[in-house]
């Protein structure tokens, strides 16, 4: 191998301008791949985090066409539908059993039973329609990180504690320690103590959600021991549909996923992934064409040298290796430069625009695997691109070359 390495390196060095141009081409290709895919996946992560940060991945409900429609129509109609439909929301039959079944579905990492319904929050003579949600704080935190998003107080729901969104707190002029009266359609009412205020980053939730203990919600909503839904978190978000199907199989209940609830987001994510794949494909293609074309030219330019090397006993295999190595070296060195370029671009870009709180507007995801993957691909592509020119070199007839000097 030493002979091949020496000759390959020397041929590249001889190429000078050609070699540098190719290296620059590979570097730009790899740099763009690294930078754009870091940016796209950073933005995507941010988007997913913002959306799914305040949403369960899967919501399991009792089978009920009306209820199903309510979910799809959005929170605004919940109140109206409930008014028309029944005195109390439908509940999940034998929910402890179904909860246990859901927990056993592979890929489900957290579950939280919810007792939810419509209510009014009243402070003085101001009254607001709210979504009353009875939850177990420890479990619910694993679905939506309320504790991490508190702006005041604590997320504890003991006795008559209530935790609500900052929009609602502002509308009603409430703060931690204040009292608020919750009133349901059935005329049931109770007074709660505001124990915490959260900001989930979604206006709608901040203005509507009131979290109380499951027990209190069941009483106010006249659910007896029942719960209205079970929310779950999965290990891989894009597997949510499959997990939901498993849940339906095992429980006979209905299950909606974040993907159905956020169709727009999903379309957006999918087209981002598609564009990232396109960018990578064309980047790799550019790298391959660059390396292949420079080596094709090099084989022609070096045909005399190749002929001489063969005449003094260099085998076909070694001749091929000399050129394949050149492809590998161009790919590897080019991607090293490209990784540097991509990282610099990404960091510049991230620091270019900062949100008021100092966090970047364009987050980038510069995980080391991104660099390794780009380099491995570029090197492999360099080798593959070198095979055809290397074959041509290996086929050169030394007698021909020597005769025509």
């Amino acid at each position: 191998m030493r002979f091949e390495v020496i000759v390959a390196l020397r041929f590249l060095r001889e190429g000078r301008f050609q070699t540098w141009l190719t290296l620059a081409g590979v570097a730009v290709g790899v740099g763009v791949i690294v930078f754009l895919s870091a940016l796209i996946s950073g933005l995507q992560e941010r988007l997913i985090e913002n959306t799914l940060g305040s949403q369960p991945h899967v919501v399991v409900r009792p089978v009920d066409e009306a209820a199903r429609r309510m979910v799809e129509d959005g929170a605004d109609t919940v109140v109206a539908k409930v008014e028309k439909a029944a005195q109390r929301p439908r509940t999940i039959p034998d929910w402890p059993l179904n909860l246990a079944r859901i927990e056993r579905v592979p890929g489900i990492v957290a579950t939280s039973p919810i007792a939810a319904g419509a209510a009014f929050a009243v402070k003085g003579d101001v009254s607001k329609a709210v979504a009353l949600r009875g939850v177990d704080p420890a479990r619910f935190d694993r679905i939506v990180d309320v504790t991490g998003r508190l702006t005041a107080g604590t997320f504890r729901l003991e006795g008559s504690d209530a935790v609500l969104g900052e929009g609602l707190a502002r509308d009603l002029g409430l703060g931690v320690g204040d009292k608020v009266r919750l009133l349901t359609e059935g005329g049931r009412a109770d007074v709660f103590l505001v124990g915490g205020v959260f900001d989930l980053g979604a206006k709608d939730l901040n203005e509507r959600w009131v979290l109380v203990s499951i027990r209190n919600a069941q009483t106010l909503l006249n659910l007896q021991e029942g719960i209205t839904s079970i929310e779950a978190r999965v290990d891989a978000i894009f597997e949510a549909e499959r997990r939901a199907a498993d849940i339906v199989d095992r429980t006979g209940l209905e299950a909606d996923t974040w993907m159905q609830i956020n169709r727009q987001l999903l379309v957006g994510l999918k087209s981002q992934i598609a564009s990232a794949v396109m960018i990578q494909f064309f980047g790799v293609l550019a790298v391959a064409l660059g390396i292949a074309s420079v080596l094709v030219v090099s084989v022609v330019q070096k045909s005399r040298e190749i002929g001489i090397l063969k005449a003094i006993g260099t085998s076909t295999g070694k001749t091929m290796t000399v050129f394949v190595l050149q492809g590998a070296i161009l790919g590897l060195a080019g991607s090293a430069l490209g990784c540097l370029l991509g990282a610099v671009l990404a960091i510049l870009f991230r620091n270019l625009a900062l949100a008021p709180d100092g966090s970047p507007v364009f987050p980038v995801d510069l995980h080391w695997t991104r660099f390794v993957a780009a380099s491995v691909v570029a090197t492999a592509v360099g080798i593959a691109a070198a095979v055809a020119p290397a074959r041509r070199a290996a086929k050169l007839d030394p007698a021909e070359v020597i005769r025509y000097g």
Partner: protein
Amino acid sequence: MAEPNEIGASGFVAPGDPDGPILRLRGVRKSFGTHVVTEVLHGIDLDVHAGEFVALVGPSGAGKSTVLNLVGLLDRPSAGRIWLDGTDTSTLDDAGLTRFRGEKIGFVFQFHHLLPAFTCLENVMMPLLVHRGRPDAEMRDRARDLLVRVGLRDKQDARASDLSGGQQQRVAVARALAMRPPLVLADEPTGNLDTHAADQVFDLLREFNREYRGAFVIVTHDARLAGRCDRIVEIVDGAIRGDSRASM
């Protein structure tokens, strides 16, 4: 012309037979072309023994280079057999021919054909590097010794392309001898050189031939230099016309 037939008309040479010829051609023919086939060599018989210094002469187009390319295993004959150091080369596959070329043959071409990207020392080392199997220091020493012998001690780190024609041809001679091949082939090695440089190169070849008794076959148009060889083989129109020994 009597000698080639003394060792048996079958042409068989025992491998490694110290008295056998290093090179033997029997009925070697070569044709070129696919549609219009022209025969260039019409049955060449020739034996060359170790230590012989042979001039191959003849008019332009007679087939001298063709003979040398066949003997140098750069090409295969259309008919006939070539034995090299006791091995029938028609039994070798391409890889075997390549290996033989590296081990048994040293080439000096008319247009010196050095590798311009490499230094003189590297050019001389190249056959050793291709062949492997020797420690670095030994290869380097051998290449350096050869450069000293051809009078280019201070040019070893110069790039081959920076040398004069005569100097380049001397590097090519050193390279041809790096593996100490039993057979050295030179196709008009002095063709592009002035008389002085030509003499230098010729003297070197002659010196090495006397020293380690390799067989040398040299194509030349220079009657003066041919006259200084042990033996002159003349090719005309693809056949051997004369084979004479210099009386020493």
